[in-house]
C-alpha cells in the first residue's frame, strides 16, 4: 500500500478543521469528506493516512466510513445523481421519473455511465419534500421534476 499524501491546500484545510474541535477524532467525517471531494472516492490508503492523523486505527476509519452512505470506496461518475424516492417524492411520481432517468442515461439504478460521467442512485429523503419530486446532482438540489426537466438538467451538464 503506497502512502497517501495530502496536498498543501488540504493540509491548510485540515489545520482549520482540527481547530474546530477539542478532540481530533471529531475531524474524522470532515476529513473523509475532504478526501472524497478531492478524489471522488476514499481509498484504503487515504483511510490509513486519516487514521494516522487522528490517532485511530484504519479499521476504525473504515468502520465509520461504511456507516454513512455519502462515502464511496469505489469510483463514481463526475455527476452523482441522488434521486429521492421517499414518501413525498413517491406520491409525486418519483418511481417513474427515476426509471426515466435511468433509461435516459442508459444504465440501471446504482450504476455509472460508461463514460464515467453519471452515477445514478436511489436516495432516501433529502429534506426538500415541498419540491417533490426532487433529486440532488452533486451539491445542487433540483425540485419539481418532470421528464422534460430531467432531460434538460442532464443535457446541461458537461
Amino acid at each position, binding site marked *: 500500500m503506497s502512502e497517501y499524501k495530502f496536498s498543501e491546500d488540504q493540509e491548510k484545510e485540515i489545520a482549520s478543521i482540527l481547530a474546530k474541535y477539542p478532540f481530533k477524532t471529531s475531524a474524522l467525517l470532515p476529513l473523509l469528506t475532504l478526501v472524497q471531494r478531492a478524489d471522488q472516492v476514499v481509498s484504503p490508503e487515504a483511510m490509513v493516512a486519516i487514521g494516522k492523523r487522528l490517532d485511530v486505527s484504519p479499521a476504525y476509519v*473504515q468502520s465509520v466510513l*461504511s456507516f454513512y452512505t455519502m462515502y464511496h470506496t469505489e469510483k463514481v461518475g463526475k455527476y452523482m445523481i441522488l434521486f429521492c424516492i421517499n414518501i413525498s417524492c413517491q406520491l409525486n411520481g418519483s418511481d417513474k421519473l427515476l426509471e426515466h432517468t435511468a433509461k435516459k442515461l442508459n444504465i440501471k439504478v446504482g450504476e455509472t455511465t460508461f463514460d464515467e460521467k453519471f452515477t445514478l442512485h436511489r436516495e432516501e429523503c433529502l429534506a426538500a419534500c415541498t419540491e417533490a419530486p426532487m433529486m440532488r446532482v452533486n451539491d445542487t438540489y433540483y425540485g419539481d421534476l418532470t421528464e422534460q426537466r430531467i432531460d434538460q438538467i442532464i443535457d446541461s451538464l458537461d
Partner: protein
Amino acid sequence: MSEVTLTIDGISVTVPKGTKVADAAKQVDIDIPVFCYHEKIGPLGCCRMCLVEVEKMPKLMTACTMDVAPDMVVKTTTEKVEKAQKGVLEFTLLNHPLDCPVCDKGGECPLQDNTFKFGPPDTRMEFHRANNVKAAPLSPVITIDRERCIACQRCTAYSERIEQGQGLVMLNRGFNNEVNTFNNEPYDTRYSGNVIDICPVGALTNTDFRFKARTWDLSNHDTLCAHCGVNCNITVGTRLNQLMRIEARPNDAVDDGWICDKGRWGHNFMESQNRITAARENSVGSTKPTSFPNFPIDAPTEHAAEKVVEAFKKIVDEHGPDSVGFIGSAYATNEESYLYQKMFRLLGTNNIDHKTYQDTPGLPIDHYDIEQIESSNIVLLIASDPTEELPILDLRIKKAVSNCETRLLCLNDQDTALDKYAHLKVKYKIGSEASAVDALAEGLARELGEAIEFSSTLDQTGISADEMKSLVEAVRSSMKVCVVYNPAALSGNAGLRVKRLLQVISKIPTVECGAIPVAPATNAVGAMDMGLVPDFYPGGVSVKDTEQVQSLWGENAPTKAGLSALEMIAKAKSGELKALLVYRSNPAVDFPGGAQVVEALKNLDLLVVHDMLETETTQLAKIVLPSNGPGFDEGTTTNIGGRVQTRRKSLDTDHIADWKLINVMLKTLGDETGYPRAAKVLDEISMKVPGYQEIDSRGVGKLGLNREKVSCEESSIGNASMDSSDKLRLRIANYLFAHDKILDASSKLAHHFKASIAFLNEKDASSMNVGDGDAVRILGNGMEINAEVKVDSRCKPGGVVVPKISDEQGVNGLQNLDGSPAWVSIEKV
C-alpha cells in the same frame, strides 16, 4: 462502596452500587439470558435478550445496561417478559442457519441454550435466510462464519475496550453490518483468540479445532498456560489423548478471563518431532576422558539418571563440590526446581542458578498480585514491555488506565506499545538504567529528607532534570504505587537498585506501595523462591545465614555462595568447572557469549542436559535426559503476582515425570524422603520454604493462592558508573512470537514470525548514513548478525534495539560472556 438492595423475582439481593441488574440476578441464581453482555467487556445493549420488567417503568428494560437502584423491583418471568424474550429470539434466529449439527459451538452455544430455555418452539420465518459468507478466514487461526453472526458486537467491543486496538470493527450498517477488519486484512493481534471464547454463537471459531471433535466428547483439563509469567488459567480440551484446543478459564486474580494467542495456539511443541523421548548418550567430546560410565542405549530413563548422579558424585569426590554445577530453569515447576536445588546442595555445592541477570529473591515491600494494579493509582513500569513479554499483563494495565483512573508511568530505554497509555514516559539511554533508577530513588529521598549514601548521575541517562522531577513528583504525590519492573531487562546490578528504590518509596508516609517483578519466564518468581540461585536457599534464606540454613537443611548444607550461571560458564571455559547439569535451558543460544558458551560447554568433562526438546545445547551434551514439560507435567508455579497455582497434566505419557526422575537421582544420592506424589513435594515445600507455609494442594485449588511475601536481604551497592564508547549500546528486546524451539516452523503462529530488525535512532542513522530497509551487519563480541534497519526514536541516540525474533538470529551472541551491556557496531551490507 455503598450497597444497594433490590428485589428480583421476589428475592431480595444486596449488591454494590453500580452493579448491573443482570449481574445482580446471577447472585441469586436467576437466569437472565444475554448474548451481547459480557461482564468483563461491559454493557452494549445490542441483543435485547435481557429485557426485564421493572416496576414503575413503562417499557421493558435491558438488565445488562441498567444499574441497580434502591428498592427497585425487577421481574424476569412475567408474561410480558416471556413474550419479549420469545420475540427477540425469533428475530435472532431469523437469519441464523440451523447448522448446529456441524457447528463447532454446538453443545456450548448460548444461542442454543437460550433458545432451549426461553425460545419459541418454531419460527414463522418463511423466506430465504440471508446468504452470508460461510467459513472465511479472519486470520490464519480464526474462521468467521458470517451467516452465523448475530451482530451482538461482543467481539468488536472486546477489540475496542479490552485490546484497545480497534482492529476488529463493525462495517456497514443495519442488516448489512458485519464484523471485519480494515481492508480485509487478517485480525491477528496478540490476543485475538479471545473472541472465539466470547462469541455467543459459532461465528468465530478456532480454525485449528474446526470439525475436529464435538465439544461434549472432549475431556477438559483445568490447567495453566506455561508460556509467560502471568500463568493464565486455561482449559485444555483433549480427545483420545490428543490436544484439541485451548480455552481461557477465567481467574480474576490472574488473567481476568483472557489468554494471549501464544497461550492458545503455541502448543505444537507438545507433539513436536523434536521432542526428546528417551535418555541417550551422545558421542561428543570423544577426545576428552569421560567420567561417565556408559549405559546401554535402551536402558530405562531411571537407569540413566542413576548413572548421571553416580558420575556427578565421582567428580565431586575427585575435584570437590565446587567442580559441579546446575543451571536450572525459570520454566520449570516449583517442585522440579525445589528437588533439583536439593539434589545439588546435597552434592555440597551452591553452584546453582537459572538466569543470566543479577537478582535476589523477595522484595523489600509488598509483593502485589496482578489485581492490585487496578486499585493502584500509579503503576510505575520499569524496563518492562508487557505487550511482548506478558501480554495479559498488558491488558490489565490498559484496563486499569482506562477504567480505574490508574496512571501509568513508563521508565524504560525503549518505546513500547503501552507508552500511548502512559501519563508520563521517561526514556533513558540504553545501558544507563542503574543511573536512571538511582536518580529516581535519590529524587524521592531528597523530597523525604532522607539520608542517602549514594549520588546518581542523571546526565549519563539522557533524562532531563525536568523529566525526572515530574517522575519523582508523580510517584511522591500518589496514594498507591505499584512498581512493575523486569529484572531480566536490567543490566548489571540495576535490579538491586530497583529494590533500593522500592525501599525509598516505602518510606513516603502517604504512599501505599508494592511491586511486581515481571521477568517474562513462566516461573521466574518460583525459581527464585525455590532457591535456584547461588547465594540463597529456598524462600530467600541467605547462604550466609548459617544458623537458619543448617536448621532447615542440615549440618552439611553448603554455606559458601556458589557460582552464578554465567560464572559457571566462565569456569567451564577455564576448566575449573568439570560437570554441569542443565535443566530445560538452552545456554548455547539464550546466554550471552554465543560461541564462547559453546566452547565452554564443550570443555566440560560432563554435560548433562535434561530437556523436553532438542536444542543447540542438547547437541553438546554427553547425556541427554528426557523431560515431559507442559501438557504432560504436573506441579505448581508461582506467577509474577506471587500466586501459586497448579499446572495439571492434560495428556498422558508413558515417560517418567521429571519430579519422579529427580527423585530417583535424590535417592541415588542417599536422600530417603521419597515422594509418592507430586503433592508430597509441595508439602515439603510448604514446610521448608519461608513464604510457602500456607501453600498446599487443597489451598491452591483451581484458582491458586498467593504465597506470603518472601523477605529480601538488603544489599549494599555503590554509585552507578558507566563506560563510554563510540559504538552503540545493544538492547535486546523481546518479541512474543519469536521463532524458537517452542514456536517452531510447524507452529500455528508461524505467520507472526519476523525478520531481524535493528531499530536505530534517527541521529545515529544519519551519522552512519543508513536508512529504513537497509541491510546491515551488527558486530559485537566477535560475532555478527544480520538485520534490516528501521529508523525511528525507539531508543535514544547511542543505542540500538534488536528484538530477539528467532534462535537462528543469534542476537544473544553479540553480548559478552559476562553479561555486561554489549557495545556493537553496525556495517552496511
